[in-house]
């Protein structure tokens, strides 16, 4: 029936008569069928959007205008961006952040496992650690480590090691301990959430195969927990990188402290702060990109197809940018 009607349809039908089921290619053998005309409707005009765009653009123009009229020496900005001192500071910032993160990650996994252990002593110690280091400001913790020499003048580890505390607790050590131990408390909670997110059936399966608890944790649970652990860890790292600017208070020569030193002596205070800003942004951007690919790596096996990389997305969008018509038959597949 459908085929008959469709076969008689006029070629100039811009809109199929209402009630006619849309004919498909295979409706009848030997009959010519006409596909329904594409919908060419006039899109709704979103006047509110135009207005909002105008307002925002106006604000951006005002902001750029203000910047242009500011008493900023743009040349100083360019001059100090790759200054040796600034580069040294950026290097120190990166170094202390990466080491503190590594420390936080390792200690965090240990604390998470302790916290989930059946042993009441280890689990309460882990709880206490997290309670203390999450409950006090990093700023205070940094100062506490830096001034440890005031209450323990000598670090005495029995026969293994003995030295003046001031020699041990350098600005770098204080920064590393302050950031790393604090980070461990946060990482412990992230790791615990990740480990608990893995289905219990996984542990049962590995136990049934005769694997020990340690093998189960290392080979089966942790690799799957990584999918949950990696995204917040990326955020933690970026936070840590920015928090490392607090290490200026313990005399650690990181990016901000270096920038401020130069700014104070050369008089270009704001210019140097902007130099630091650019560096912080550059470093966090690089790590955000790295985080994206790391997440993609750990999504392996959990979804049938990995999501596109940004570059793949751009290429696909370029080809389909203007194609806003509804997908035609055959394009769904």
């Amino acid at each position, binding site marked *: 029936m459908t085929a008959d009607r469709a076969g008689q349809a006029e070629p100039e039908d811009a809109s199929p008569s209402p009630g006619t089921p849309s004919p498909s290619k295979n409706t009848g053998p030997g009959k010519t069928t006409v596909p329904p005309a594409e919908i060419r409707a006039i899109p709704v005009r979103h006047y509110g959007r135009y207005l909002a765009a105008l307002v925002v653009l106006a604000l951006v123009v005002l902001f750029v205008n203000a910047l242009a009229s500011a008493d900023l020496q743009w040349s100083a900005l360019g001059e100090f961006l790759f200054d040796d001192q600034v580069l040294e500071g950026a290097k120190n910032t990166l170094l202390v952040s990466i080491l503190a993160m590594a420390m936080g990650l390792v200690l965090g996994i240990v604390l998470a496992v302790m916290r989930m252990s059946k042993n009441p002593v280890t689990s309460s110690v882990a709880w206490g650690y997290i309670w203390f280091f999450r409950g006090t400001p990093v700023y205070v913790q940094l100062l506490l480590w830096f001034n440890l020499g005031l209450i323990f003048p000598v670090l005495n580890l029995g026969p293994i090691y003995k030295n003046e505390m001031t020699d041990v607790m350098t600005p770098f050590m204080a920064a590393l301990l302050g950031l790393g131990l604090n980070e461990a408390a946060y990482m412990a909670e992230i790791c615990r959430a990740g480990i608990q997110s893995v289905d219990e*059936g996984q542990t049962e399966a590995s136990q049934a195969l005769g694997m020990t608890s340690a093998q189960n944790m290392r080979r089966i649970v942790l690799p799957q927990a990584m999918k949950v652990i990696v995204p917040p860890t990326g955020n933690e790292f970026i936070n840590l990188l920015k928090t490392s600017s607090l290490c200026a208070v313990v005399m650690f020569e990181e990016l901000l402290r270096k920038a401020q030193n130069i700014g104070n002596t050369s008089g270009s205070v704001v210019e140097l702060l902007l130099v630091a800003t650019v560096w912080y942004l550059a470093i966090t951007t690089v790590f955000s990109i790295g985080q994206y690919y790391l997440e993609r790596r750990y999504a392996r096996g959990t979804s049938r197809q990995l999501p596109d990389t940004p570059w793949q997305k751009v290429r696909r969008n370029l080809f389909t940018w203007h194609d806003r018509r509804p997908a035609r038959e055959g394009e769904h597949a």
Partner: protein
Amino acid sequence: MTPMVRAEQVHKSFGPVEVLKGIDLQVAPEEVFCLVGPSGSGKSTFLRCINHLEEINAGRLYVDGTLVGYRQQGEKLYELRDREVAAQRRDIGMVFQRFNLFPHMTAAGNVMEAPVRVKKESKSAARERAVTLLDRVGLGDKRDSYPAQLSGGQQQRVAIARALAMEPKLMLFDEPTSALDPELVGEVLDVMRDLASEGMTMIVVTHEMGFAREVGDSLVFMDDGVVVESGHPREVLGNPQHERTRSFLSKVL
């Protein structure tokens, strides 16, 4: 001949709820032993007690003559260490209702994991055997697929290959086809049928009465934590003696 599994008055409680109320049964080597019963009757729990995924509260459970989960010296029972329990489980394969494949490993990776980690086989030898086993369950061409890329029936067949890779003397099947689309049940049952014909000792918790009748050597009907009726599958299914068995079978057959 020592029975492959011997249960003596096995009791198991979860908190105040008594799930197993004294199970006595024996499974002979090379036997296909089917456990049927309504959900909540304790059949899956009993299966999980056999490889000590659950601890029993009273009674004794032996696999191939060895006490499961404990060591007895005189009158005293000693709990086994993690490592010792793991060693006991090596010889007992288990297939789960929801497959429980390791999603971050390929099919071959799943199969070779335990031989490499537990038996310390070389990776190349384990991989070779994994491919052979996957061939045997009809999935040789899927060796590099991840579980998410496989159908339920294929996943369950990989899970069977994974259990077989440890060369077990006993295989436990916990409702292996219950999570499958009806049209995929057959391919899993075919693999189990082959396994039975090769003389593997199997304990199968199942709702597939056709499979039980055709392949099973003995069948136990459980309800409310006790064994209600047992015997040859054709007899129990064809001529049930207890009212409870009759009413259950009338609903599932």
